[in-house]
């Protein structure tokens, strides 16, 4: 692919003017005459039977319009989706409110109060009296596997949702014949996605059409599933994702509130609004991660890895949401990392617990995979007294081996892992850093250098091993005046595709970027699509735009050739004008071709009118971005505090469409990954109460908490899509967590500290150094 003036350029975003002037409309900014507001009564218990619900007082409260419980939902709503089916998976049904009389996590929705103002709804919701009989609850996924553990879903008879295995080769033999085996147990703590905009839904039923504005990453999926949940024909449902204030996977779901608010709007005949409070967001929107990984890596004395064994126990929380089981299965698929590991076996067990459900959060199973293999490689290096760089080098899949199939079943498209590593080392001046580290140690100062070399999988439509195709739609419509409208089935919410997709069209058609407008997130306006998640928007959605634009161009050339009475092969174009090669005087303007496409009295024989192409793009295979992150920290042994000295990221996301936007994705991704390493972690008490329930306890990083990052790239185009792009939304997160943790543990190596539980807070460092009480 030729990188033109438009594609690959540092172009500032088309979406920004409305966002920087306060004109953007998020869900909470919508107000309609007669609108009523919903407050949701949520379970204060982790596990309890509802003996009774008394709504009498709430119904009588000022401004109250309706109070619904599970009984009302039962009469009006069908179920919500419970994840892509996987083999022998046992998933309970879920509904907008609890309908079977059992609450299974703190925050489970029990009743809904509708009133004329938000405050009236919230005040009245305090008056709903729910009589609970608490049941024993289970918080820990390993405890949930024990015989005699409280069972969340009695009809399933077990807390196990699914077991999957991945692998190939002969793992037993590999371990038996190995010189060394390193083992570790990793707790991937739960994380709260905490998009700055909480969720929110507004619904209105008017003129035979249900319109639902929802803060979502997947408006089309919401539309289709709502048809079942609210029992309305799908073509009477119009879903709009207006401005969406971040998602990170937390809005990649169909939530009960979407069904509930839609059902209320149908039943009440009034516009209905629900805006999630931040407190609700922490207990009622999905959490991420939540996995316990037992990892064993077998190797020979020279550092060659012989085998890998992984047992991953995934804390699914109380229910299976839209993609819940797909997250830990990604870990099984991707656990071999960048390395040629001939014998590998991974068992993944999904377990229900009395906690908020988990689902896809930035990375969704790949950060867990990368973390476990990257920690294991560092442990192996320490065991063999080798440099962590050399252990990695020794085991990299060589560039000539692509496409490369891992024993767990992933087929890597392309890569050059050593090139990215070398670039990072060179930029960091790795040798000098090691010298400085040795010098400082003599002064009682502890520098740590952490390396993570990652490979991840993007362009997902569904998850490998699960049902569901991988595709995305796009329409490229040249209007009769020559301006271009692009419709995409993806649903960007900060990633900037209104700009990058315009760049793609500009590159293909030659029209200025300013002449292209990209529309998304409105199911009435754009063709059926999948959405924005899994770093798929550019490689899959962008490729759909690319192909549609190519088809438009082909047609335009044919029209121009017909108008100029030449053969299409003889037509050249600079975007503004089509010219017959060798006869510069025989030319026609692009906008005249567009006009003629619609006037349609002078088209080639048999050609349909119009210059408007919709394409559903299906990539040949999935694509695999990779890179090396290198982090330098200093640890204060007195307080356990970690200070960042440098952070270098060399990422390979294939061809880069807009370097400014790619940098933004990587910066933000790194901060979320780094946050898992040292700041963020969900804490529950033994009763299932969330202790990290606000931003005061759940530490989302601020500007002073994070360093400036040094970015660089290698470019290894993917052969699987016409853009050669690989996606970059999650790479930063995937690389950062192990890079930071490896750096801290490298700093603490002189103290013999080999493992630390994330988030690695000052207290945990200090406890490890003291040999104090076990790190919790």
């Amino acid at each position, binding site marked *: 692919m030729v990188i033109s003036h438009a594609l690959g350029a540092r172009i500032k975003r088309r979406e920004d003017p409305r966002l920087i002037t306060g004109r953007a409309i998020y869900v909470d900014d919508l107000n309609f005459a007669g609108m009523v507001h919903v407050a949701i009564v949520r379970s204060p218990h982790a596990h309890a039977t509802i003996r009774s619900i008394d709504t009498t007082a709430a119904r009588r409260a000022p401004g109250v319009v309706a109070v619904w419980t599970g009984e009302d939902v039962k009469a009006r709503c069908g179920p919500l989706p419970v994840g892509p089916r996987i083999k022998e998976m046992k998933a309970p049904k879920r509904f907008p409110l609890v309908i079977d009389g059992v609450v299974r996590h703190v925050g489970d929705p029990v009743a809904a109060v509708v009133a004329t103002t938000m405050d009236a709804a919230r005040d009245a919701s305090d008056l709903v009296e729910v009589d609970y009989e608490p049941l024993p609850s289970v918080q820990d996924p390993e405890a949930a596997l024990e015989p005699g553990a409280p069972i969340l879903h009695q009809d399933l008879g077990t807390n196990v949702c699914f077991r999957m295995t991945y692998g190939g080769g002969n793992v037993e033999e590999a371990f038996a014949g190995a010189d060394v085996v390193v083992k570790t147990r990793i707790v991937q703590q739960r994380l709260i996605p905490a998009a700055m905009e909480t969720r929110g839904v507004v619904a209105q039923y008017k003129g035979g059409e249900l319109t639902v504005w929802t803060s979502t990453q997947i408006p089309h999926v919401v539309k289709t599933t709502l048809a079942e949940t609210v029992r309305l024909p799908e073509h009477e449902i119009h879903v709009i994702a207006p*401005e969406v204030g971040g998602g990170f996977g937390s809005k990649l779901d169909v939530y009960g509130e979407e069904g509930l608010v839609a059902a209320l709007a149908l039943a009440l005949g009034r516009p209905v609004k629900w805006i999630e409070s931040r407190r609700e967001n922490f207990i009622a929107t999905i959490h991420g991660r939540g996995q316990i990984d037992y990892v064993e890596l077998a190797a020979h004395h020279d550092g060659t890895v012989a085998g890998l064994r992984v047992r991953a126990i995934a804390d699914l929380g109380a229910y299976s949401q839209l993609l819940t089981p797909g997250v830990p299965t990604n870990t099984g698929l991707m656990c071999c990392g960048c390395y040629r590991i001939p014998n590998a076996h991974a068992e993944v067990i999904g377990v229900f617990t009395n906690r908020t459900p988990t689902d896809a959060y930035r990375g969704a199973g790949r950060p867990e995979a990368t973390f476990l293999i990257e920690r294991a490689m560092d442990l192996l290096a320490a065991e063999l007294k080798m440099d962590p760089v050399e252990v990695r080098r020794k085991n990299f899949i060589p560039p000539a081996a692509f496409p490369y199939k891992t024993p767990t079943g992933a087929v890597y498209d392309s890569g050059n892992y050593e090139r990215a590593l070398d670039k990072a080392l060179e930029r960091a001046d790795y040798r000098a850093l090691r010298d400085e580290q040795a010098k400082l140690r003599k002064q009682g100062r502890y520098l740590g250098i952490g390396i993570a070399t990652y490979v991840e999988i993007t362009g997902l439509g569904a998850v490998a091993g699960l049902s569901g195709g991988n595709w995305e739609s796009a329409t490229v419509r040249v209007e009769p005046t020559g301006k271009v409208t692009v419709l995409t089935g993806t649903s960007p919410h900060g990633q900037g595709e209104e700009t990058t997709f315009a760049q793609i069209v500009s590159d293909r058609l030659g029209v200025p970027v300013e002449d292209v407008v990209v529309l998304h997130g409105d199911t009435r306006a754009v063709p059926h699509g999948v959405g924005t998640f899994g770093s798929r928007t550019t490689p899959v959605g962008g490729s759909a735009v690319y192909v549609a634009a190519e088809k438009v161009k082909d047609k335009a050339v044919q029209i121009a050739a017909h108008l100029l009475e030449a053969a299409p092969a003889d037509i050249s174009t600079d975007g503004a004008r089509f010219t017959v090669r060798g006869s510069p005087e025989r030319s026609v303007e692009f906008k005249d071709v567009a006009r003629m496409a619609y006037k349609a009295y002078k088209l080639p024989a048999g050609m349909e009118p119009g210059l408007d192409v919709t394409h559903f793009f299906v990539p040949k295979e999935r694509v695999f971005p990779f890179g090396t992150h290198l982090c330098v920290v200093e640890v204060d042994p007195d307080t356990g505090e970690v200070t960042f000295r440098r952070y270098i990221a060399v990422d390979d996301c294939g061809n880069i469409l807009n370097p400014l936007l790619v940098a933004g994705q990587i910066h933000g991704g790194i901060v979320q990954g780094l946050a898992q390493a040292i700041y963020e972690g969900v804490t529950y008490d033994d009763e299932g109460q969330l202790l990290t329930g606000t931003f*005061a306890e759940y530490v989302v990083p601020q500007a002073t908490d994070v360093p400036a990052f040094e970015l660089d790239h290698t470019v290894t185009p993917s052969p699987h899509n016409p853009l050669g792009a690989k996606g970059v939304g999650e790479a930063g997160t995937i690389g950062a967590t192990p890079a930071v943790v490896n750096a801290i543990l490298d700093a603490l190596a002189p103290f013999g500290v080999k493992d630390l539980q994330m988030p690695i807070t000052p207290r945990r460092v200090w406890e490890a150094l003291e040999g104090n009480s076990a790190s919790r």
Partner: protein
Amino acid sequence: MKRPITLTVNGTTYQHEVEPRLLLVYYLREVLGLTGTHIGCDTTSCGACTVLMNGLAVKSCTVLAAQADGADILTVEGLAQDGKLHPIQEGFWEEHGLQCGFCTPGMMLTALQILERNPNPSEEEIRHGLDGNLCRCTGYQHIVNSVKNAARKLKEERIPVIPVRKAVNTRAPVAGAGKEAD
């Protein structure tokens, strides 16, 4: 018991009767319809609701509308003048200082306070000044660049950091204008 207040927002003076417990952020969003000021939490942690009150950055979720009686408020809607973007807006645009945009209005107004107190801030000073504002998208680096970009432009163009406006007109309470939380 409602209480009369008079305050100037983005150069326009308003008079309304408000419920005493009405927060300034709801007054701006629901009574005046200025929805560019966002609400991101309930613990005064996130800074999305930051506005300038008499030139000082405040979280409008911690100020009662009644406490703002007589005050001069600047929100994101008041940054651009006569269709021309303020340098802080240009800075965020040029340096890709925003992704989802939800924190951006509060970020920009906080940034104005940084630049008003220190026209030439270092990276560290900028980060310290932004500590009351959470962003989940950008990782902050492009926001820091945006503030530096604006600092340069403000110096070159010699324009006041905080837009100066005269109160242009006075609006009496409009019956049924917006609704008030009570």
